[in-house]
Structures are given as structure tokens and as C-alpha cells.
């Protein structure tokens, strides 16, 4: 029983970081309908931004802010340099895919050059090492903090999308750029804001996951991108609550397959399950109806 509970605790804290990252992905892929393969690189970038901030002696909350803003700025740059340029020149969606993939590769190369290929670790002062043992279940303070931070980020994004003028503008641009223009929404600026939010979520998720395992590496973004894509398809493209639920689900599935089967089967089981779900319900687990663009 305690093994089971232990996996639930681990799976939820891991899943919460997936959920934060997946929300950013669903904003870009689902809401804006843009294929941005550099989203994982922003995740990796955020982890390094947070790491450097922590090494400079910033307290963890400020380092997280640096990771978030840093990821957001990377998102903004990607939009300005790649996606906007391609839109203005009438480039095909696939060009954005290839260009952002190239950007991601470049960022991995730059990170390797600056930080080396060796795994880096956060300074001990950044990490919370308190932990409790309750009936054989070990709960780290860090896991709880990560979960709480993730939930706060999710709530902030949900509120922004549902209740703010910017959020309504984003949803309107997602529906139709022409309709957005008609009501006076500056489309370019709104897309830029969305890239900032998505990059920021990726950057924050990078620092959170980097903290959870205390591992930062130039290659951490690539697997994450695949997971992010999986989760947003699982949750229904463009569906923010779906991305959150999908993130937690993937975290739990991974942790359980490691605990009960074998760590080498982690991906096989995780992705196998997702494959099954998609075959049964192609619009995603949590979509009430297929969201359509006009």
C-alpha cells in the first residue's frame, strides 16, 4: 500500500510540471494553431536561466521568476524572428516547423557550448531538503512546493484566458484573426503575448522539473517536447483543462510503470497507453466537442 501511495505522491508532483509545460504547448499548438518545435528548448532554457539565477545567489522564488521571464522572452524572440516573418512572407506551416526545429537545435548547441554536456545541479541552498515520513510514504517539501507553484501557475493562466481582456483577445484571435481585427484587437501583439505566456510556462516548468530531479542538461527539452505534444493531444488540442489533466495522467502513468514494471518500460507503457486512448477517442480524452477554427 505504501508503495502505491508513494507512487501517487511522486506521480502527482512530476505530473504537475508536465501540466505546466503542456499548458504552454496547448496555447501555441492548439489555440494559435502554430507548430513550434522550440517549445522544449524554452523549457531547457528556463532551467538554465533559473540555475544561473540561483548560482548568483537569488532566492528560489526569484530564480523561478527569472526562468519564467527568460522562457517568455525566448518565446517572443521565436515569434518575432521565425513565425511572424514566415506569416508576413506567406510561408507554409511546415516551414515554421522546420525553422523552429532548427532554433531548438541551435539552442541545444549553445547550451552545450556554455554549460557543457555534463548534467548541472542547483546549489544546495536553492533546494528544500525537508521531508516527512508518513507510514512509509516519503513526502518531500520540494514536491509540495512544486505542486503548489504549478497549481498557482495553472490558475493564473486559466484566469487570464477566461476573465481578462487579453484572454478574450487570445481566444478571439484563435477563432479567427479577421474577427479579432474587426473588434479592434491588435492581432500581432496578441500573438506575441501568447508566445510570452507559453514560453514563460515552458521556462517555469524547466526550473520546476530541474529542481524536482536536481538535474539540468542541454538535452532535457527534447523528451519534454514529445511529452508536451502527447499530453495536449491526450487532453484535446487547445483544451487547457485537458492539458492539465493529461499532464497529471502522464506523470502518474510514468511513475507507476517504473515502480511496478521496469524503468526501461516507462516510455513504452506511457506512450502505449496514450496510443490506446487516442485510438479509442481520437479527439482527446477530455474534449467535449471538437474545437474548430473559423
Amino acid at each position: 500500500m505504501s508503495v502505491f501511495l508513494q507512487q501517487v505522491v511522486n506521480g502527482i508532483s512530476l505530473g504537475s510540471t508536465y501540466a505546466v509545460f503542456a499548458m504552454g504547448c496547448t496555447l501555441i499548438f492548439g489555440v494559435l494553431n502554430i507548430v513550434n518545435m522550440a517549445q522544449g528548448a524554452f523549457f531547457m532554457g528556463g532551467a538554465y536561466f533559473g540555475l544561473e539565477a540561483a548560482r548568483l545567489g537569488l532566492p528560489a522564488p526569484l530564480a523561478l521568476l527569472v526562468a519564467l521571464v527568460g522562457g517568455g522572452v525566448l518565446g517572443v524572440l521565436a515569434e518575432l524572428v521565425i513565425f511572424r516573418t514566415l506569416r508576413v512572407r506567406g510561408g507554409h506551416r511546415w516551414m515554421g516547423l522546420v525553422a523552429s526545429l532548427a532554433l531548438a537545435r541551435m539552442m541545444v548547441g549553445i547550451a552545450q557550448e556554455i554549460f557543457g554536456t555534463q548534467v548541472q545541479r542547483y546549489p544546495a541552498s536553492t533546494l528544500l531538503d525537508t521531508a516527512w515520513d508518513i507510514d512509509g510514504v516519503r513526502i518531500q517539501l520540494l514536491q509540495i512546493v512544486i505542486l503548489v507553484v504549478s497549481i498557482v501557475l495553472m490558475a493564473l493562466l486559466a484566469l487570464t484566458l477566461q476573465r481578462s481582456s487579453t484572454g478574450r483577445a487570445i481566444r478571439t484571435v484563435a477563432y479567427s484573426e479577421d474577427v479579432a481585427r474587426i473588434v479592434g484587437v491588435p492581432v500581432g501583439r496578441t500573438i506575441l503575448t501568447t508566445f510570452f505566456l507559453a514560453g514563460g510556462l515552458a521556462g517555469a516548468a524547466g526550473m520546476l522539473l530541474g529542481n524536482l530531479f536536481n538535474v539540468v542538461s542541454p538535452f532535457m527539452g527534447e523528451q519534454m517536447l514529445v511529452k508536451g505534444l502527447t499530453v495536449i493531444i491526450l487532453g484535446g488540442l487547445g483544451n487547457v483543462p485537458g492539458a492539465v489533466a493529461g499532464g497529471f495522467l502522464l506523470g502518474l502513468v510514468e511513475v507507476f510503470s517504473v515502480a511496478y514494471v521496469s524503468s526501461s518500460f516507462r516510455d513504452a507503457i506511457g506512450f502505449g497507453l496514450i496510443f490506446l486512448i487516442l485510438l479509442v477517442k481520437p479527439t482527446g480524452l477530455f474534449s467535449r466537442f471538437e474545437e474548430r477554427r473559423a
Partner: protein
Amino acid sequence: MLEVRNLKAGYGAVDVLEGISLSVPTGACVCLIGANGAGKTTTLSAICGLVPASSGEIVLEDKEISRLAVDTIVRRGVSLVPEGRRVVANMSVEDNLLVGAYTRRDDQVGADIEAVYQRFGRLRERRKQYAGSMSGGEQQMLAIGRALMARPKLLLLDEPSMGLAPQIVNDIFRTIREINETGTTVLLVEQNAKKALSVATYGYVLETGRISFEGSASDLLKSAQIAEAYLGALS
């Protein structure tokens, strides 16, 4: 309010509008009628900046606006009720109204939403519902309400009667008259010429990118030429 002079505009290299001029005096309700493909929608799109003007002038309250971005033109007081309504289907009725007020930063938005609900009781009943789940007539009301939320000085309406039952069409035209009577200048595009001329005081006829006829509503109604081309088929 609005002066369009020698406007040429279109899509890509080809001009759909081959130099049109029209005038909408402050407080007036002017209509633009014409057959399918004449360029009515293109005219409204050019006025609000969605389609670039290749030459000519668009002057709003003595200021040239033909090079401005759409959101700037909306801020200057021009709102469009687009052809086919184009409400945001996966957003609630109330959010559609709120996004209509995107350009505003004053504290009267809530009061104006209330005013729209007063005008269209159905929208109040359905305020939490997805806009896409409403009937065509309700969506048309919402599209008009959304445009009003920007507090326009000039309201552009593109075929508001399209695809609606006669009773609803009457309601819509009554609303347009009311909006005009409370001080909003209106430029109305219609294929339903008879209806349009019952609200408008002046009209233009557009034929393949050129103004072929203009005159007061009574002139247009009397004109045999117009009757044949646009009224006959509909009466």
C-alpha cells in the same frame, strides 16, 4: 462623417473596386446595394482597413484613415457588423460582447452590456451560452451588440438580413433604425434593397466595382432601372 473618394481596392494585384466615391453625412443612414460580387463587402472591408486601398481616399471626420491599422480605425469610431455575423462560436455571448469593447478602457462597459441586453432580451437569457449554439437571428443580434460595444460613431452593417426569417428581418431593421435615431451614423450594405431603402435616406448602387446610380431613397425606389435590377426579383 465619412467621405470615400475614388477608392480603388482589391485582393492582390487585381482591384475589385475601380474607383468609387460615396459620402455618409453625420447622423445619416446610407445604404449600398448591388448584386453578388459587386464589391459591397470589399467596400466595407476597405473602409475599416481590412483590405488595403490601392488608391483614393477614405476620410473619417476630416482625417484620412486609409493607411491606418484596423484597430486604430475601430478606436476612431468605426465598427463593422460583418457578413455572416462572425461571432466567436466557442466563446460565451457575454464574452463576445466584452471582446467588442476591447478598445475601450472606460468604466461604462458594464452599463453598455446592460444596454445591449435591454435592446436584445434574448441575449440576456443566453449570456452564458456559447455564441455558436444560437440561432442565426440571435447571432445577428449578438454581432450588432458586439459592434455597439465599441461605441461607434459610424456603424457598418454587411447584409444583416442574410438568411433570416422575415419576422426576424423586420426586428433587425427596426433595431437598425433605432440605433440610427439615437445618433449613430449608419452605412448599410444589403441585397434586400426594398428593406434597406425603408431605413436609409440615401442610397448607392454598386455594379462590378463602380457606383452606377445614387440618389435619395425615394429616387431609388422610383427608378425603373433599380426596380428591374434589384427590387423586382425580391418583391
